[in-house]
């Protein structure tokens, strides 16, 4: 028996700092860890698919003779080969990371994304498509199942949708200031997501991940025949490919901030809560 285990007399009071409380239900934990694996495979195999044609376009069509709004490529210069990223008219030299990098054995790797960021490491469009288009079923099935279940069990309404008060600019601004000062909620307040967390999770669950799935489907010529409205939603197959890439960048940004927040808020307690479901409320500051 530890001091923090709930006893009969504790039940009468509200949880306070130091208490071990139930935080994540099983569906959230299963989906989180499935997605952690699936998303990493999707991102890395997706970067290899991008390597096959490292140019992005807007509209229904787009190929080498057409204007690309983004390009990651290599070129020869008087100083030697160079990798670059071009967005619109702005070109940034990215040798070593984008456009031209080194393989593990030291040889030059003249592709958009480097070997350490792709599945498989060496250029192979056919194999990266197999990884991507097989795990896509788990990715799409996962968000569909979790999304529907979270609506049914009240997770969305109870934990994710902000209250009217939380949407007041003053409240949002206060929460931004707390985050900037790395002041995290303690005690009873830490049982609930704050408004920035709610916003981030709703963005990921409601926009980024469904958007990835739908733009992915729009790139399938067969799905365009079955659901032609997909092309109307995104403004064409090449626009869908561009949006797919932008949303993926958004997911990467979310993951980086998410991991940083886990580290700052206490990785042991946070990771435990996502494995066992139990979370120790941070002690109130006296």
């Amino acid at each position: 028996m530890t001091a923090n285990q709930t006893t009969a007399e504790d039940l009468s009071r509200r949880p306070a700092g130091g208490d071990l409380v139930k935080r994540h239900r099983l569906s959230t934990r299963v989906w989180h860890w499935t997605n952690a694996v699936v998303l990493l495979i999707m991102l890395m195999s997706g970067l290899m698919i991008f390597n096959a044609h490292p140019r992005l376009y807007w509209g229904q069509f787009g190929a080498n003779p057409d204007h690309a709004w983004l390009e990651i490529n290599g070129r020869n210069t008087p100083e030697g080969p160079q990798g670059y990223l071009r967005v619109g008219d702005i070109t940034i030299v990215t040798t070593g990371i984008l456009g031209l990098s080194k393989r593990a054995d030291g040889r030059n790797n003249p592709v958009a994304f480097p070997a350490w960021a792709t599945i498989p490491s060496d250029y192979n469009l056919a194999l990266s498509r197999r990884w991507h288009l097989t795990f896509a079923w788990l990715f799409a099935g996962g968000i569909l199942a979790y999304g529907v279940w979270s609506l049914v069990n009240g997770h969305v309404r109870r934990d994710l949708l902000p209250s009217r008060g939380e949407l007041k600019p003053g409240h949002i601004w206060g929460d931004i200031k707390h985050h900037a000062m790395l002041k995290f909620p303690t005690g009873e307040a830490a049982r609930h997501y704050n408004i920035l967390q709610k916003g981030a999770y709703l963005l990921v669950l409601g926009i980024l991940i469904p958007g990835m799935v739908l733009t992915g489907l729009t790139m399938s010529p067969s799905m365009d025949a079955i659901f032609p409205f997909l092309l109307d939603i995104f403004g064409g197959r090449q626009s869908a490919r561009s949006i797919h890439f932008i949303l993926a960048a958004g997911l990467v940004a979310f993951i980086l901030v998410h991991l940083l927040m886990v580290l700052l808020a206490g990785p042991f307690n946070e990771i435990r809560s996502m494995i066992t479901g139990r979370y120790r409320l941070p002690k109130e500051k006296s």
Partner: protein
Amino acid sequence: MSTLLTRRKLITGLGLGGSSLMLSGCDPLGSSPKFEEMVLSSGNWLSYRVHRLIGSDALAPEYSASEMSPVFRTNGNTMPDSADYQRMASENFANWQLQVDGLVSTPKSYSLAELRNMPARSQITRHDCVEGWSAIGKWTGVPLALLLGEVGLKPQARYLVFHCADTFGLGTKYYESIDLVDGYHPQTIIAYGMNDEVLSVGHGAPIRLRVERQLGYKHAKYVMRIEAAADLASIGLGKGGFWEDSSGYDWYAGI
């Protein structure tokens, strides 16, 4: 205390350790033929089944003339290196013949003039390369269903195999294959015209297959022979097409 530390390390390490373990595991897994065949090909198999289940008759989007690509790039082979082909090309394919045979009741061959005299279909469609680019162009040709009607498929026939004049690398002739759903699909045509002109050599003269709901590598160029077959195992290396055999591209290219 020591158990707590161990647990702490274990749980914190799961995230980092797990992901790096997974990353280093993807290359060996992907290069295992069994894993690739059993696991990594399952998504494509499922997509094929689902697409056939919910949309076997669905039509590929068609575009207006104003939406066409200003320049439709070529890719793959742009000039077959066989002497026979080049002789036929120099004669404007006057002596070229398309064979339609295999599991058919009446094998037939067609000259280019005969194909041009058959009922034609024109369609402005989007060509999607497996690499990711798209180009929109206008294609004119004979619906494949008309040819299949003339030769009469035997009941055992399940696939249509397109044997081509061009070769890649070590002299393996290009070939591709489709199922009968695509074979009889109204937009599946044997195209001899592109963008209101005679199909150019770069784009597959004298004829190329248009199978509009699949990626570019299925659209065989320089087609010389169409064979109806019961299965694909005995053709080429058995995977149904040149890129399928040589590089592991999926036979079903609807995604």
